């Protein structure tokens, strides 16, 4: 019995470890690639620690524009969905019992309807309305922000509704009734009694709505028209050429998420501790009790570490200069490149000799394998691609692969995953 429980325990530990590796591993690796100077996001081979991708990111106009649109859409979506979600939840508590189930099915359905379907139906519906009213194509009904906000609100309202329903279950209707009995109007009773009670739910619904709107892709991709949001821009970047500046963005987003999650955790935990210790919540909100506070609150310790790490990273990024290391790497690469070219030349030469000796000399093929010093060969200028190609037709395909054509590889071409080699070629050329 005891061995069995140990077995289960070990199994559980391994399972938990694997599960969280699957969950967090991709994000950590993606974060690491943001600091690798290779122009394709990769962890191995590691080149040089660099912060240049953050500069590339902050100077990307399309990303910044997408961010702006995302914030606009998010803002309006939050207002609309929180209001609608609240109304939907209040309605659910007092709707005629017979249609309650139907009503619930209808308002929960948008969560289950595929996002593409929501986007399409929103687009088609408002397009129809537009045609019916005889407006032109650029009326506000065709505006990307208008359509995106409506498309998002359709299903985000359902999320908000669920948040409010959970909170309303603990609300005592007697409070509103008491207020009404004491002479408050309905609006007053709502504003002074019910709304303050619902305030935490309003906060979490708003955060939820904003995040859901911010990260949505499926619906937005049909409705954005001329206002691409950040997600749309990201998707296009990822689909048509990967570049570590996206990793840099992901790194920032992951850090912000972790930061806010930890702050939230620390605050709830602190309130809990305070209540457990019998202190009023307000009493602990001010001071920062160090040791005790950390002891009962692992999240706080993690948060402190996290902030320290962030500060250290920023400080390093200000001081650290990747250029010397990069130069060394470039040199190494160039040396390797040279070696590769020489090896290639060697092979070509061997082939050519083989060809020459074929027929008349039966031992020639054996001889040609012996490497010969380059000065002896008549093809001294092997670096000229045209020269090689002209003399030996066999060399042509291989020649195309060698990174000797500097015209193509400019440093601007970093988006091209294959530009690694060509970049070095340019470096060669510059010297």
């Amino acid at each position, binding site marked *: 019995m005891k061995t069995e429980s140990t077995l289960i325990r070990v199994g559980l530990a391994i399972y938990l470890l694997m599960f969280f590796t699957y969950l967090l591993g991709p994000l950590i690796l993606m974060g690491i690639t943001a600091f690798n100077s290779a122009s394709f996001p990769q962890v191995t081979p590691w080149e040089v620690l660099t912060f240049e991708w953050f500069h590339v990111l902050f100077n990307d106009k399309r990303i910044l524009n997408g961010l702006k649109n995302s914030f606009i859409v998010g803002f309006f979506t939050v207002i609309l969905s929180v209001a609608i979600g609240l109304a939907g939840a209040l309605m659910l508590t007092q709707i005629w019992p017979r249609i309650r189930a139907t009503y619930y099915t209808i308002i929960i359905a948008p969560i289950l309807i595929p996002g593409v*379907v929501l986007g399409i139906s*929103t687009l088609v519906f408002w397009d129809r309305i537009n045609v019916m009213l005889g407006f032109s194509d650029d009326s506000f009904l065709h505006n990307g922000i208008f359509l995106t906000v409506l498309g998002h609100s359709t299903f985000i309202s359902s999320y908000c509704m669920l948040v409010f329903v959970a909170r309303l279950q603990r609300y005592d209707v007697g409070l509103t009734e008491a207020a009404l009995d004491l002479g408050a109007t309905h609006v007053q009773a709502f504003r002074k009694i019910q709304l303050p009670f619902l305030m935490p739910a309003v906060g979490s619904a708003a955060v939820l709505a904003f995040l859901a709107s911010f990260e949505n892709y499926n619906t937005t991709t049909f409705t954005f028209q001329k206002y691409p949001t950040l997600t749309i821009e990201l998707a296009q970047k990822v689909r048509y050429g990967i570049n570590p500046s996206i990793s840099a963005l992901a790194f920032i987003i992951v850090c912000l998420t972790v930061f806010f999650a930890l702050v939230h955790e620390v605050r709830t935990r602190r309130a809990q501790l305070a209540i457990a210790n019998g202190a009023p919540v307000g009493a602990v909100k001010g001071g920062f009790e160090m040791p005790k506070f950390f002891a009962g609150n692992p999240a706080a310790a993690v948060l402190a570490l996290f902030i320290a790490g962030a500060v250290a990273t920023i400080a390093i990024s200000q001081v650290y200069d990747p250029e010397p290391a990069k130069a060394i790497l470039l040199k190494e690469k160039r040396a390797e490149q040279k070696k590769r070219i020489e090896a290639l030349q060697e092979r070509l030469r061997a082939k050519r000799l083989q060809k020459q000796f074929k027929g008349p000399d039966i031992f020639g093929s054996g001889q040609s394998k012996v490497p010969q010093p380059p000065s002896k060969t008549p093809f001294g200028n092997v670096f000229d691609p045209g020269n090689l190609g002209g003399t030996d037709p066999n060399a042509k395909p291989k020649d195309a692969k060698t990174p000797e054509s500097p015209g193509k590889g400019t440093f601007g071409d970093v988006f091209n995953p294959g530009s690694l080699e060509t970049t070095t070629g340019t470096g060669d050329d510059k010297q």
Partner: protein
Amino acid sequence: MNKGFMQEYFRRNGQFMGWGLLIAVGFWVIVLIILPQISMLDFSFRNHLPPPEMGGPKDVYTLKNYQYLIFGAENNPEAYNRVDLMVFVRTLIAATCVTILDLVLCYPIAYYLGQSKGGGFLRILVLLLIIPYWINEILRAFAFRIIFGDSGVINEFLLLFGIIDTPFDFIRENVALYAGLGYAYILLMIFPIYNVIESLDRNQIEAARDMGASWTMIHRRVVIPYAKPGISSGCTMVFMLSAGALAAPQILGGPSSLWFTQLIYQWFNSGGNWPQGSAYAVVLLVVCIIIVLTVMRLFKVNMGDIGK
């Protein structure tokens, strides 16, 4: 609706609040949910016309768009539109696989979280679960592309240890797609199951154990029947979302395997044939709903359990 109810409703909410609620809910239910779906359905039965001809004599109802999905273009030599139908079936099968994968992966952790006594460690675990969920969908797919690419971490690792000689094309084999899709919806599977298992009285498990039930028996006879609403709710959400996913297939999908949503996307964007795209969207929606309702009927679960 009966009059007594409306009177009661306005007595409870007052004129202003009552109308405000009605308008907000009416706007949501009618203008945002029902009318767009109806108009999409309507649109899917129409001819593909340039805007000036809309409402003209050619604007009549037709089954053409649905016929195209099943039988293909008119000059199609084959009896059925094999390409599109295959994509559709493959999408549904793949979505089912992703759902099962997630269920197998998430049930143990949901059980563990639901049955453990709480405390700091548990809270950190829950936090770690939530964090990936707030990362952008595109970025999550992007992370998987970095990992599974030709020069990705996994390939480099396998090459280093000599398990393989040439990089394995995870993207072409759709391994990356399944991993990415499963990853995206883990949380939606865990939380419904967790919520149900959390409310399961631990004494029931103790009692079963005392009476000699084995570990598997406890799960089969006690925990799983109790957690059924949570399991089916999680499965429903994961299935619907992965069948309707667009970003992950676009980024992680192999060149030879399309997702049905990608066909819809093509009709709308590069194809420019909206009615055809609407018809495809309607088919996707209706078939998904039918599958979900059938499964829910089979497992005897109500719609009301969803979203708990």
